[in-house]
């Protein structure tokens, strides 16, 4: 009896539609956000992440409406983000029904935002998303949807973020994202094993074996995937049964 490893489907949304791409580009339609949310809730997802990838001011009311309609479907926790720059953006997302807020670029630009969010909502509601890319023997942080290098060391930034008030790290490997070649277990292990807060591994998932690897070797607390769930190449129920049979503690829905 201990804390179960979590399987977290992610909806990258543009308005009410879910989109998907490779290396954060070449986006195409992958379904309706509310329909997918209802399906994952029923199939045993442990929580759901909804990201506004358009994240433009004009789109904001549509995104908040999507959160409201998605939240109404869920009996599991909901994390939302994309374009959260200030406390007021986070409040709107929480009021719309999100349990946790994820921040990325804005936290790099102004780390104090993490402290503000944590003071208002509690560290358990603050998820720091880090897009990491390998550079020689280490990983550095990218922002603006992966388009801009920062030179920041990903491990140091994760530690700093946790200290500032993030209660969880959503760690995406830019090298693996969209490739379906498996999670970057080395990156995940480097950060998860030295960090005091939970780490959600993201980027590269295709096979059940990839999830097993990132839980066992990568020491991830949770694993996130998008397209393999959206297009039904992998069912959450089947994935969890495989993980349980491989000795990983997971929550199997009744």
């Amino acid at each position, binding site marked *: 009896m201990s804390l179960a490893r979590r399987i977290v489907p992610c909806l990258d949304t543009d308005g009410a539609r879910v989109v998907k791409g490779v290396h954060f580009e070449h986006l195409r339609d992958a379904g309706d956000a509310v329909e997918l949310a209802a399906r994952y809730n029923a199939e045993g997802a442990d929580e759901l992440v909804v990201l506004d990838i358009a994240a433009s001011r004009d789109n904001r009311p549509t995104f908040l409406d999507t959160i409201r309609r998605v939240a109404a479907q869920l*009996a599991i*926790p909901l994390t939302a983000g994309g374009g959260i720059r200030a406390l007021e953006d986070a409040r709107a997302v929480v009021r719309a029904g999100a349990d946790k807020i994820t921040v990325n670029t804005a936290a790099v630009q102004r780390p104090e935002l993490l402290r503000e969010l944590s003071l208002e909502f509690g560290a*358990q509601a603050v998820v720091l998303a880090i897009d990491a890319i390998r550079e020689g023997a280490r990983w550095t942080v990218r922002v603006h949807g992966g388009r801009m290098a920062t030179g920041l060391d990903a491990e140091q930034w994760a530690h700093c973020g946790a200290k500032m008030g993030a209660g969880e790290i959503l760690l995406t490997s830019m090298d693996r994202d969209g490739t379906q070649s498996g999670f970057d277990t080395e990156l995940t292990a480097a950060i998860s094993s030295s960090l005091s807060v939970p780490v959600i591994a993201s980027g590269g998932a295709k096979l059940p074996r990839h999830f097993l690897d990132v839980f066992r070797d990568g020491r991830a607390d949770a694993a996130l995937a998008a397209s393999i769930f959206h297009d039904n190449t992998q069912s959450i129920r089947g994935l969890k049964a495989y993980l349980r049979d491989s000795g990983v503690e997971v929550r199997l829905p009744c």
Partner: protein
Amino acid sequence: MNVAIIDYGAGNVRSVATALHRLGVEATTTSDAAELARADRLILPGVGHCAALIHALDAQGIRKPLVDAISRGVPFLGICLGLQALYEASDEAPDLAGLGLFKGSVTHLPANVKLPHMGWNQLRPIRTSVLLRSIAPESYFYFAHTFAAPSAGPESAAVCKHGRDFVAVLEHENIFGVQFHPEKSGAPGAKLLENFLRQAA
């Protein structure tokens, strides 16, 4: 049935209302003392920092009507911080007094495990529980917290372990509490809320 969800500005008030709505119950979300006094079921949700909850109880004048209602025998359910607030004090806000209905202090979970304790965990029953009636014993519930109440008190009906044992389900006469979030815990969470609502006032 007149169910009041005490709204002091916590993030999960809406989720609790949504979960009750799915059970066919339209709850009132309120911080109004008169409305609290009229309720025949009271739910105190809470996430975030415990100081915010305790401050709100006093600033919004909720403390007295709440304690009065509980002493009249109105079934009360505290969720997460709503459970923690039932104790005398919390290390998270050492200068503030809790409701003091149970002995002891809420303390930080040990630092040898990842914190917050975030995700789905199982319970270990201590005694027969009203809230857990007809719920499979291996069920998982969703937790998201760093502080927790002691596990040893007679009010403990089930405990959970993360670094140490802590009270996960609290039951004493008409007072109920859960450290996890039933509103986010799938079917077992919904059943637990239903069990609470079925309590005779």
